[in-house]
């Protein structure tokens, strides 16, 4: 993570996390009363989405640390919970929804970790099976170069039995985690894509081989693993390329240690399109055959999604028939046509994933009601 400017909100200045980051970054910090001035500075830049990637704002999370994943009703949501540690990302993927989600997007790291830990402890105390991740509004591991949050989270989760943490990343920053006593309560997860997508659409992320090497290291240390083929992108030759990724994956990773693999195809809020066109002039990903879906997002015409998923599932099942494959935000028709079933009620997909987490990560507790 290359930080060019460091801002600290007045109310966040006295936190130990802030002091730690300041000493680690060894750069002058500006204390501000109100983040508005930072937002304006970023907004004035000719490329605000890029500017926001090198400006770090240390602040407090004034809202909830634990939130429900913002799924929509028509598409089946996984019922994951988000641990809100910060926003935005120092890597730069063309398709990244965060570019359009925050106005303007800025790297914010929340420093009130005591409150975060209290929220977690309260959640753990309920004894309810749940899956919690940090990789929704940011990448889970980009922050490690400024603050070692992941090791602390691994430790916290290792001390309870009902919840599992999923750290989802496109980095290889796993070394500080390898020797931790995780007790399988942390799932190390990677977003995977084809070499062509990584090279052309994911600036600053680790290469596929490097991601798999990091995953291999984690598997050796007993961490449960997960992989997310999301967003899958259609282009000439993509089927063969995705099959090739799957072959590489299973040539290095034992499927028995994989908790789940998710699939999702490229979808975006219409506001993202002009941003991609402006910032990634060579990228063609926004020009495919999209329709406006029921949640207002642009999605590939359904038959194209079904065909792509079916090919990838066939390849996964060839190598790992037992592995749990699920869709991120797809409807019953897609589930039925690609997997031959839809998540069973009651509980649906969240229950299916919870049960899998129980099986692989050794969770024990009550299943959530509803």
């Amino acid at each position, binding site marked *: 993570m290359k930080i060019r400017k460091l801002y600290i909100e007045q109310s966040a200045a006295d936190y130990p996390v802030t002091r730690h980051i300041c000493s680690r970054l060894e750069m002058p910090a500006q204390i501000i009363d109100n983040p508005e001035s930072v937002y304006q500075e970023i907004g004035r830049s000719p490329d605000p989405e890029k500017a926001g990637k090198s400006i770090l704002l240390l602040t407090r999370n004034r809202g909830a640390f634990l939130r429900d994943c913002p799924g929509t009703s028509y598409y089946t949501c996984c019922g994951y919970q988000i641990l809100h540690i910060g926003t935005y990302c120092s890597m730069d993927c063309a398709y990244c929804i965060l570019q359009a989600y925050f106005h303007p997007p800025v790297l914010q790291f929340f420093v009130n970790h005591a409150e975060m830990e209290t929220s977690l402890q309260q959640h753990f105390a309920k004894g309810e099976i749940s899956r919690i991740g940090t990789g929704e509004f940011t990448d889970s591991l980009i922050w490690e170069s400024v603050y070692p949050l992941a090791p602390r989270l691994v430790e916290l989760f290792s001390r309870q039995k009902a919840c599992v943490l999923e750290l989802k990343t496109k980095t290889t920053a796993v070394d500080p985690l390898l020797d931790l006593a995780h007790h399988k309560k942390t799932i190390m997860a990677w977003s995977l894509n084809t070499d062509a997508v990584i090279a052309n659409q994911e600036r600053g992320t680790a290469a596929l081989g490097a991601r798999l090497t990091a995953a291999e290291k984690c598997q050796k240390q007993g961490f449960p693993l997960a992989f997310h083929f999301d967003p899958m992108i259609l282009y000439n030759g993509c089927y063969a390329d995705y099959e090739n990724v799957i072959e590489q994956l299973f040539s290095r990773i034992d499927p028995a240690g994989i908790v789940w693999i998710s699939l999702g195809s490229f979808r975006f809020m219409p506001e993202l399109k002009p941003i991609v066109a402006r910032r990634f002039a060579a990228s063609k990903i926004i020009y495919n055959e999209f*329709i*406006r879906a029921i949640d207002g997002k642009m999605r590939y*015409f*359904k*038959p*194209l999604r079904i065909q792509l998923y079916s090919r990838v599932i066939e390849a996964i099942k060839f190598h790992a028939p037992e592995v749990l494959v699920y869709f991120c935000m797809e409807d019953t028709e897609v589930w039925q*046509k690609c997997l031959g079933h839809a998540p069973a009620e009651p509980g649906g997909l969240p229950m299916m994933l919870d049960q899998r987490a129980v099986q692989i990560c050794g969770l024990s507790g009550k299943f959530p009601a509803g």
Partner: protein
Amino acid sequence: MQAETLLISLDAIDTRDNRYQISDSGPPEALSESIGEAGLISLPWVQQQAADKAFRIVAGFRRITVCRKLGWPQVTCRVLPAGASKLSCWKIAIADNAVTRSLNLLEQARAAEGLMDVCDGDAKQAAQLAGPLGLRVNPELIRKLIRLLALPGPVQQAVAQNRMSLNIALDLESVDESSAVAFAGLCQNLKPTVNHQQEIFTGLYELARLQDKSLADVLARSDFSEILHATRADRRRQLQVLRRTLYNMRFPNLSRSEAAFEQKKKNLGLPENMNISAPSGFESNVYTLTIRFSLSRQLCDCAEKLAAISRNPELENLLDRSFNENP
């Protein structure tokens, strides 16, 4: 501004120096007739250059052209001194044009460029100067107008003639010159509405990007060039066919599914007052039935027909979503 009124030989006026020219086209017929009949009512403005040099026109390019055509040896002009500032000259040029007629966008662009020059690129100041001269432009519009002047001539002309919107013209900055010119030609020929211009440009641009071609190359494909060069074709129909062809190429799978749905609907033979619509983009599997009626007995009649339709195997065929597996 001090100006003298002098009778000047037309040979002493340098018509090649067009730095203050705002008018975009040659003189209209009516102007020639009026000057021929009544003489010059409103005098052109010229600026004295160094003593031995010709006069430069500040305002009245078209009037002077008419006088030349009419074979006049001399013309009475308002003459500005050599030391008159650029700002004064531009004020006169703009006011002289803008108070008598509404300027088209290309003319506004030329006027805006002149004001920006004297305001050292400060669009806010330029806009403040423009208002009292009869040119209603805000700083944002000024910046857009200046960009228009960097586009190829045919694009500028299409905007001047209201065949292309300024925003679409500015979108053409993202394509090569021959593509911009080809698109301007399309707008000149087919006169699409602004919404259709946007739709066609977006479709062509995206298709070109997907095919690694230029927009001009896409337009040169036989499917399009046949439509564009059809002789004796009705312009509205041509436009409709072009939009449909473009849609089919841009969304090949979706448009095939839509066509198949329409065919199956025909096979079902719905009465004229009933319709079934497919879900938008075939994303959900919920179809919509609409019935139009005004009397209760019409509704009863519909209910009977509906019962028959629901037993028709063609309905199953219509709702069959296995097309989804064969894009």
